[in-house]
């Protein structure tokens, strides 16, 4: 066991609280990112791909890039609007 340098224990062994918290945070971050990406796929498809052609046009590609940037920005605007307002 002394040869393990990482904080994660062998499979099946009980993790330390710190390792557990790390694992949970990492999984939550991944889950948040997945959800956000799924939402952006939906939103950007609706806004940018109005007439599906035989390939993605350059207009559609740049729309999608802008859409991702704007959606992330919108998330920040709303987050700040809600959580830096004390009522």
């Amino acid at each position, binding site marked *: 066991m002394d040869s393990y340098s990482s904080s994660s224990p062998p499979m*099946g*062994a*009980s*993790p330390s*609280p710190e390792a*557990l*918290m790390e*694992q*949970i*945070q990492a*999984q*939550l971050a991944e*889950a*948040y990112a*997945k*959800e*956000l990406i799924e*939402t952006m796929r939906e*939103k*950007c498809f609706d*806004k*940018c791909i109005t007439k599906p052609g035989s390939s993605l046009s350059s207009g559609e590609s740049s*729309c999608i890039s*802008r*859409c991702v*940037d*704007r*959606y992330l*920005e*919108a*998330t920040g*605007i*709303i*987050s*700040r*609007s*809600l*959580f830096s*307002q004390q009522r």
Partner: protein
Amino acid sequence: KFDSSSPSSSSSSRVKLPTAMDPNLANNPQLIQFLSQEKERAMANEVVAKITSSCWDKCVDKPGSKFSSSETSCLSNCALRYMDMTMLIMKRFQQQ
């Protein structure tokens, strides 16, 4: 009548925990506080995600290379009005 249990697709339900766990971990105060903080964070994240989704539809027509000032104010107003609406709904509901 109303199912207010957590939605099955929320981020927090996708977390997988190790199969072997020391039962004493359940009493670890650090862990308890951590879990309660993460739960709050997950709930806040869900609210932001839901509101962003609705307000995006209302405020953004075609995504540009930056937001206009009207789009920006629409988005922040939208979030606040959504919260106002939530309180109004609860008040009204409680009056029934």
